[in-house]
């Protein structure tokens, strides 16, 4: 059983976003989700530096460096898009106007605590940016990440060892092995990668997993079937 590729994980997240939802994709891997959004979905992407209805990267040579995303890469604007200042942009974020924010993470705890900012150990400068505002303000916070660290240690833990971005905010976790919902009772499994087992997943997860009656199956291409 091979874990989902980065592309397949992005597709899996994209296929779950609500139609016509207002969505912010965090920098890094989450930005990649945009490549797999069906055009029929009507999802409108928000970028915290002041853009609503973000379109794809422009063709080479047509970049406008006054039109960039939160990762400071050139973007385009879709029809019906708009520009606004940072204060209004963060009002959208903090004020609960975004339906979903998809963020990367170092660790997520059983109760939805999120650790995803670079604290700047080893003398390098820290950076927080706007992830913390998203984590507090969006209606749903989805995390997408590898299920474990590169050396196989769990990222889904009882309590985060890293400095927190926000407490009790994550609602859903998409990994390269599973989809988990953060519930009042704990982490509930929603879907599991084809070929993986519940016991095997629990082995790679520090926090205990709840298994509901119906578990969906994740295919290698990132689609999910009942």
């Amino acid at each position, binding site marked *: 059983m091979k874990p989902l590729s980065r592309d397949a994980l992005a597709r899996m997240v994209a296929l779950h976003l609500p139609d016509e939802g207002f969505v912010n994709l965090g920098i890094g891997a989450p930005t990649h989700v945009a490549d797999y959004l069906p055009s029929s979905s009507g999802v409108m992407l928000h*970028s*915290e*530096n*002041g*853009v609503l209805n973000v379109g794809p990267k422009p063709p080479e040579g047509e970049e*406008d*460096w*006054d*039109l*960039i995303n939160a990762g*400071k890469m050139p973007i385009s*604007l879709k029809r019906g898009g708009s*520009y*606004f*200042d*940072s*204060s209004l*942009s*963060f009002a959208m*974020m*903090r004020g609960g106007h975004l339906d979903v924010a998809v963020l990367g993470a170092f660790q997520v705890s059983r109760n939805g605590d999120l650790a995803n900012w*670079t604290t700047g150990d080893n*003398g*390098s*400068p*820290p*950076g*927080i*940016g*706007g992830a*913390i*505002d998203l984590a*507090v*303000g969006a209606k749903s916070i989805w995390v997408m990440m590898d299920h474990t660290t590169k050396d196989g240690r769990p990222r889904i833990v009882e309590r985060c060892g890293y*400095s*927190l*971005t*926000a*407490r009790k905010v994550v609602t859903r976790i998409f990994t390269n092995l599973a989809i988990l919902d953060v519930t009042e009772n704990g982490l509930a499994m929603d879907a599991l990668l084809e070929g993986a087992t519940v016991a095997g997943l629990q082995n790679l997860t520090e926090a205990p997993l709840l298994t509901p009656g119906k578990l969906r199956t994740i295919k290698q291409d990132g689609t999910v079937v009942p």
Partner: protein
Amino acid sequence: MRNVVVRDAEAAVKDIKDGHTVMVGGFGGAGLPKGVITAVLDAGVRELVVISNNAGSSDDDLSLWFGAGIVRKIICSYPRNAQQFAEQYRAGTVELELVPQGTLVERIRAGGAGLGGFLSPVGVGTVFADGKEKIAAQGREFILELPLRADFTFIKGNLADSLGNITYNKSARNHCAVMATAGDTVAVEVDRIVDVGELDPENIVTPCIFVDRVFTRSR
């Protein structure tokens, strides 16, 4: 009639002094007034406190100020990929106040709007609450965040008229429109200066009441 147009970047930074607090607009390169960067260096000031989103990441931005060692402290949200800053930071020669991006702009907004601060849920239960006053309201915990103002605000606009009305280009508006409200002296670098009456009043984002100096970049 009022006319705030000045000759160049050098005139736009006139009277900046050692120890001043300086706001610099921009998110990455968008909205960054690049002409001001070199003019401040040429002015020979030191010990600046800088308020900006980033801490420079290329060879024509705030990196030049850190390279020249003229910044005492920076208040920003994302000083990553900032080599010159990182060197000073590691050497302990520059102070960093790290602020969440939304909190940063809202503190500036509060400063420009004459408010004593605001109650934010962002950072509650994290290190970003350390040393700040906690206030409970409507059954929820908040952090008291204090306003930010500056001696000088330097931002980048698209068009200006000679009165000082400003429009912006796309996502280059970012922090600039809010920073324009919170400086004692506000200088705006623009692409073009047009006649009064040419700007559609519906498109003016920063009304001239906030603006003291306007210039176009000549170098």
